[in-house]
């Protein structure tokens, strides 16, 4: 692929939240300062100290006639509106170039609640509910619903996910992986989030009051979707263009799993990165849709960040629309993006509502001379706007929209990247045991000087990720300190995330009541907690993203990591594939019917250190192999069907080979994904015989560590890299599949 700088433009908007059922009605409410916050209806809150929520009025059936988890249904509603608004004629488009990337925090929490409530009440549990649980399912569901065959991904960085998914869409368009993305975020109202924030005493008794009383959040639900496409594609089809998406910035606090850094440094780092990548000066920003959750810790840190970067600029407008539609968690960033673009269209700034005359006086004191917009919309020409989202795990994301194009940072697809470190945590199978389990006992961590005061906080999924990350950094000889902490980032790919902690938390809520959630466990129920702990322990302050996308997410993480280096954001990336295994997951896989065909489950985490050529040269790094090419391809099949079409696998392999600039015959070894499920094994066999007429040596990591899902996908590439370091092989490949019909392939070249 050649280097390219591509403009990314927004051509369609869709929105559903407590303010309305479509973008126009939501905007009408938001710009007239009308609140969607009312008493919670989804479940009883009589035993709680707070009763407020910002729920969508539509029932599941009203959102969509198909049977999915409510989070997916909300997204289908918004995506349908956005696609219609964009005027894309799907009959004429190459659907393989239209992807779906979505942010979510809680994924299928409503279905997890239902499944375990049925179980608790002695009712028969429903297999379909199992398939509706993982965040991994959502983008594939949405793509399948609309018949889109492009790349999918679910970004699961809690409350920053909706913003990071928009950034991810632009990255993939700029690196040529798609022409168009259905991009956004979605989260349904859930007892999980309500009980969790209730346990943390982070819910406001009344409607939330951001940048004002700051006494807690009000949880909302909804979905915001943007159609983002390359400028060339939009112009070729004569589409109306709302604005450009310029650049984004993502950073890690490396501070605390729930609280933001009080000095706001992580937030400011994301904002500075976004402005830099966008080619804009901070002084050019006209409006910031702030994170503004209404908790005292967020608001204090955010006031400080904004004052430090933008102080004494009364012409800068700032507001928090969460005061009207609540905090929609993984959907928040995308909903706020839609409202921000509506603001640009109208030339009006939506207000933060809920201020008394006295409050407005107090705001003047706190605002540092910035134009916070209170109670009523403000007319203002808006050319460059920013939206900020900050999350559990210490993740910060900022994105910039503009009426005019700018000199945005492109992605250099040809910059060489090397694997310079490997950390592997895999399971072993004891005699008589039914699966492979890893050793994450405290003794293992003591060797790496992880104190038990830190370790006790971590759930099993986080244990695995932390251990592999530490081992990979050690193998690469990297010590993180102030000189390099901002130049190192993290990508974690997973199929099932911290499902054990999620289920245990949910069971407690079902058994003991919504008022009895565990404040201790709740922070671990977000998929990106593991990446957060890894950054806190190591001090890594750069890019930090977690992708839930079936087994192949372990390989897809490598591609995201390469993009982060090629964008110039980081010099070094940790790319991890991880999935845990406990009796809870074993039961879910068994009840879903996956363990009949001789599949033996495993668990683990495998981290690859990826490094730019410049950094590797400077450090004198040992090189396992070079990343020569990669590709992801999919063709929709319903989530949960073990299989898919071989056509997408063939496409992934062929595109990865083309990306590497070689021919299939140059590759001497293929790390495959056969796991005992016959339909899958057959797909791999058919694709191999189609591409390698004379055959190819196939190796499989599952033979000695089980089907460890995303960990197996990453392990395949790690093993190939290790093999190549010691052999004469010039090229090797690893392939992986994910539920929903998605496949990834990566080619390694001898370094």
């Amino acid at each position: 692929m050649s280097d390219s700088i591509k403009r990314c433009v927004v051509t369609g908007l869709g929105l559903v939240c407590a303010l309305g059922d479509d973008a126009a009605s939501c905007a009408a409410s938001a710009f007239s300062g009308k609140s969607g916050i009312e008493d919670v209806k989804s479940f009883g809150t009589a035993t709680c100290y707070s009763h407020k929520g910002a729920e969508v009025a539509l029932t599941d059936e009203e959102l969509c006639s198909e049977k999915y988890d409510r989070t997916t249904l909300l997204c289908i509603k918004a995506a349908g509106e956005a696609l219609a608004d964009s005027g894309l004629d799907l009959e004429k488009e190459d659907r393989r170039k239209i992807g779906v990337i979505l942010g979510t925090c809680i994924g299928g929490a409503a279905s997890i609640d239902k499944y375990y409530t049925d179980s608790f009440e002695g009712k028969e549990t429903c297999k379909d509910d199992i398939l509706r649980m993982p965040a991994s399912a959502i983008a594939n569901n949405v793509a399948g619903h609309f018949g889109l065959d492009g790349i999918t991904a679910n970004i699961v960085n809690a409350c920053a996910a909706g913003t990071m998914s928009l950034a991810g869409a632009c990255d993939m368009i700029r690196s040529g992986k798609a022409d168009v993305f259905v991009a956004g975020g979605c989260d349904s109202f859930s007892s999980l989030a309500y009980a969790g924030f209730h346990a943390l005493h982070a819910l406001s008794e009344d409607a939330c009051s951001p940048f004002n009383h700051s006494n807690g959040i009000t949880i909302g639900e909804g979905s915001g979707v943007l159609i983002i496409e390359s400028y060339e594609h939009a112009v070729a089809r004569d589409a109306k263009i709302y604005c450009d998406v310029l650049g984004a910035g993502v950073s890690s606090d490396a501070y605390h799993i729930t609280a933001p850094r009080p000095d706001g440094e992580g937030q400011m780092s994301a904002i500075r990165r976004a402005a830099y990548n966008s080619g804009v000066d901070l002084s050019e920003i006209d409006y910031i849709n702030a994170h503004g959750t209404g908790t005292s810790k967020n608001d204090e840190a955010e006031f400080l960040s904004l004052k430090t970067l933008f102080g004494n600029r009364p012409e800068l407008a700032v507001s928090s629309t969460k005061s009207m539609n609540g905090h929609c968690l993984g959907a928040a960033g995308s909903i706020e993006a839609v409202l921000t673009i509506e603001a640009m269209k109208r030339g009006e700034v939506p207000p933060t509502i809920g201020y008394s005359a006295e409050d407005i006086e107090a705001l003047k004191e706190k605002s540092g001379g910035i134009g916070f917009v209170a109670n009523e919309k403000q007319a203002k020409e808006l050319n460059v706007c920013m939206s900020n989202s900050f999350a559990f795990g210490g993740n910060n994301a900022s994105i910039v929209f503009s009426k005019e194009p700018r000199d945005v940072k492109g992605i250099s697809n040809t910059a060489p990247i090397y694997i310079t470190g490997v950390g592997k945590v895999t399971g072993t199978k004891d005699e008589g045991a039914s699966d492979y389990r890893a050793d994450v006992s405290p003794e293992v961590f003591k060797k790496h000087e992880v104190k038990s005061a830190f370790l006790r906080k971590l759930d099993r999924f986080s244990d695995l990720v932390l251990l592999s990350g530490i081992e990979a950094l050690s193998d690469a000889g990297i010590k993180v300190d102030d000189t390099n902490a901002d130049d190192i980032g993290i990508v974690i790919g997973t199929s099932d995330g911290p499902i054990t902690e999620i289920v245990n938390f949910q069971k407690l809520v079902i058994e003991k009541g919504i008022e009895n959630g565990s404040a201790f466990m709740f922070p671990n129920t977000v998929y990106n907690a593991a990446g957060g702990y890894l950054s806190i322990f190591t001090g890594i302050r750069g890019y930090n993203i977690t992708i839930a996308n079936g087994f192949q997410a372990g390989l897809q993480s490598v591609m995201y990591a390469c993009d982060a280096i090629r964008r110039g954001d980081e010099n070094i990336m940790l790319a991890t594939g991880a999935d845990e295994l406990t009796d809870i997951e074993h039961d879910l896989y068994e009840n879903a019917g996956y363990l009949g065909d001789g599949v033996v489950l495993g668990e683990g985490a495998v981290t690859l250190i990826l490094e730019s050529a410049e950094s590797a040269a400077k450090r004198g790094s040992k090189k396992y192999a070079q990343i020569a090419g990669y590709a992801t391809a999919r063709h929709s099949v319903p989530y949960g069907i073990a299989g898919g079409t071989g056509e997408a696998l063939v496409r992934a392999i062929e595109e990865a080979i083309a990306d590497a600039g070689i021919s299939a015959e140059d590759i001497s070894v293929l790390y495959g994904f056969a796991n005992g499920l016959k339909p899958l094994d057959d797909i791999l066999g058919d694709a191999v015989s189609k591409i390698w007429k004379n055959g190819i040596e196939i190796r499989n990591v599952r033979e000695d560590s089980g089907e460890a899902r995303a960990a197996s996908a990453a392990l395949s590439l790690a093993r190939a890299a290790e093999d190549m370091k010691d052999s004469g092989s010039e090229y090797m490949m690893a392939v992986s599949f994910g539920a929903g019909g998605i496949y990834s392939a990566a080619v390694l070249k001898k370094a």
Partner: protein
Amino acid sequence: MNEEIAAKIKKMLVERLRIPEDELEYDSELFGEDIGLDSIDSIEIIVGLEDLFGVDMSGSGKENFQSIRTLTQYVEEHKED
């Protein structure tokens, strides 16, 4: 110090906060270097003690949260039989 109450508190801390049992003494400094608890843990402790003994510690001073011994003393003083 009431041994029975102290043992119950220790068990609660081990279960709710996953503190390694062998590292937790009655005089271990809970919020210091030893055990490293934080504000989220203090919420769990308050809920745990309310559950176990019906004692509400919300809003009570930091000094009561120093160790299992000080928690035990607080419970002894405020427990209604």
